[in-house]
């Protein structure tokens, strides 16, 4: 039997690959409670990685998409609406599978892009790995969902704000940066918090889809399921992973609550909307 300290040393970074800690996962009757606690915790690294990067990258794409969908130019709004419908209308699980099959179909050697004066080769092999391929899917997916939220906020911006901006002689990008964008953020923030929570939860799907878990390095749920299969006892590993995700959700709510406070800091204290987590399950 391993002591708790030993399983901590062996498994706390195991999800990064076989080189970090014990190469073999604990098996059969050898599994201790500490093994489960620490190995599942190490899987959380990937959940945080996927969620943080996808959200950060998706934020910018979503802003662009929302503005494009709101635009009066059909050449901008139609493609943006189509993109949003494609990713919001189909299950993320299927998107993972489909994307993986597309990624492995890409030529092994890379795609030759023929510029007039030179040829560059775009490497495509890295896309078949979960760490990058699944991240791309999550990134596009959250961009679409967030764009819809931002689009709704964009439509709800008070007319008076825009007229005041016009009266001050603002136009174009200045108006967007100083008036439209901050108000849009303020209005969208509660729903955006929900989306962030949903995305954090959606990261558990990555290693159940087409993307292979290389060297048995997976996310928290991957290890929880591994333990449930090994011990035939779902009453230990699933509650552990559930507890971790409750903590992770609370962290997300805390971070987004702080941002919300900052976004609304100019409003008088009495009018300032109290940030409350209202799970609307709008996804």
């Amino acid at each position, binding site marked *: 039997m391993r002591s708790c300290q030993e399983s901590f040393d062996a498994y706390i970074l195991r999800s990064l690959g076989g080189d970090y800690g014990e190469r073999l996962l604990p098996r059969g009757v050898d599994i201790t409670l500490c093994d489960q606690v620490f190995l599942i915790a190490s899987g959380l690294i990937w959940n945080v990685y996927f969620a943080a990067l996808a959200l950060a990258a998706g934020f910018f794409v979503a802003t662009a998409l929302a503005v494009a969908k709101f635009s009066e130019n059909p050449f901008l709004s139609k493609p943006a609406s189509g993109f949003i419908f494609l990713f919001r209308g189909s*299950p993320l699980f299927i998107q993972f*599978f489909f994307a993986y*099959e597309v990624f492995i179909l890409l030529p092994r050697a890379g795609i030759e892009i023929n510029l007039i004066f030179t040829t560059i080769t775009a490497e495509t092999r890295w896309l078949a790995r979960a760490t990058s391929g699944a991240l791309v899917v999550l990134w596009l997916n959250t961009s679409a969902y967030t764009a819809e939220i931002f689009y709704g906020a964009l439509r709800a911006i008070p007319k008076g704000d825009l007229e005041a901006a016009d009266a001050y002689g603002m136009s174009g990008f200045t108006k967007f940066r100083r008036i439209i964008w901050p108000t849009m953020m303020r209005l969208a923030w509660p729903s955006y918090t929900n989306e962030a929570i949903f995305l954090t939860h959606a990261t558990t799907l990555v290693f159940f889809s087409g993307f292979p878990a290389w060297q048995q390095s997976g996310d928290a749920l991957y290890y929880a*399921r591994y333990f449930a299969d090994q011990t*035939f006892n779902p009453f230990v590993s*699933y509650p552990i992973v*559930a507890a971790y995700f409750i903590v992770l959700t609370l962290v997300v709510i805390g971070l987004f609550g702080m941002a919300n406070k900052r976004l609304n800091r100019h409003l008088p204290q009495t009018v300032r909307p109290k940030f409350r987590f209202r799970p609307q399950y709008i996804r």
Partner: protein
Amino acid sequence: MFAFCTDPSTLPDWQWFACYLTSGTHLAFYWSFVVVMVLILLAAPFALAFGFAGALATRSHMAPIRLVGRTYTSMVRGVPDIVFFLFIPIAIDQALEYILHQVRCPDWDMPIRRGNDFLVCAQAKVPLSSSPAWVHDIYAFSLALFAFALVFGAFAANTLYGAMNAVPKSQTETAEAYGMTKPQAFRRVLLPQMWVYALPGLSNLWMILIKATPLLFLLGIRDIVYWARELGGQKTGFYAYPHPDWRVWYFLVVLVFYLVLTACSERVFEWLMRRFSHGQATAAGERQRRAAA
């Protein structure tokens, strides 16, 4: 399927495809679309029933019942639904077997959990190992259905609870002023009016439910995803219909299936919303009244 399908390797293209797409495994693939639809159509009313019970429990005047309702509705907030989908079927399975074991084999003296095994006597297996295969299939499907209903019931309970609170207080107060009892006021006044407030939330839930159905695959049911992977994989010359890796096309079909399902659902919900707004004291209802007048 067709008479000319006896030797596929000699067929011209269109006949080859006609035979290929109607082979036994493909018919199972098409059938799995029906299974998904059945799951959605069964899970929705069950989830609604669970949700209704949850919402009523949350509104209850008795503290213990309220606590149960609160726990149930907040259960799905912090935890990914997929954890529940993986956990609930196996937990229920083991619970059933444990209870049956206590009832049917009282004189069994060995522990049930031995090392990493969960052992019950043969009479307590659910379903019995002598049962035909379709019983096993139905059992696995019902467990999945229960898991879906439980998780989405918790979502629905939240929506319905909000909708019940959204009905203007004056409506129920008026009902009570007319001498209706609390249950009567609930049935005759609150219940018919709450749907218009619940519908946006419920339509959202329906969309989420649709998009959760591919997770059946994780429960070991031969659903769309299973067949798409199975049929699309590369087939060598040993098979009747050899072909390269076509999984991407199969998943494209599945993707389109879900997109069509979503688009159709959106239409239906728009129509429903129009129906429910009819004669209601809301902005949309008022607009309808003006247009008709």
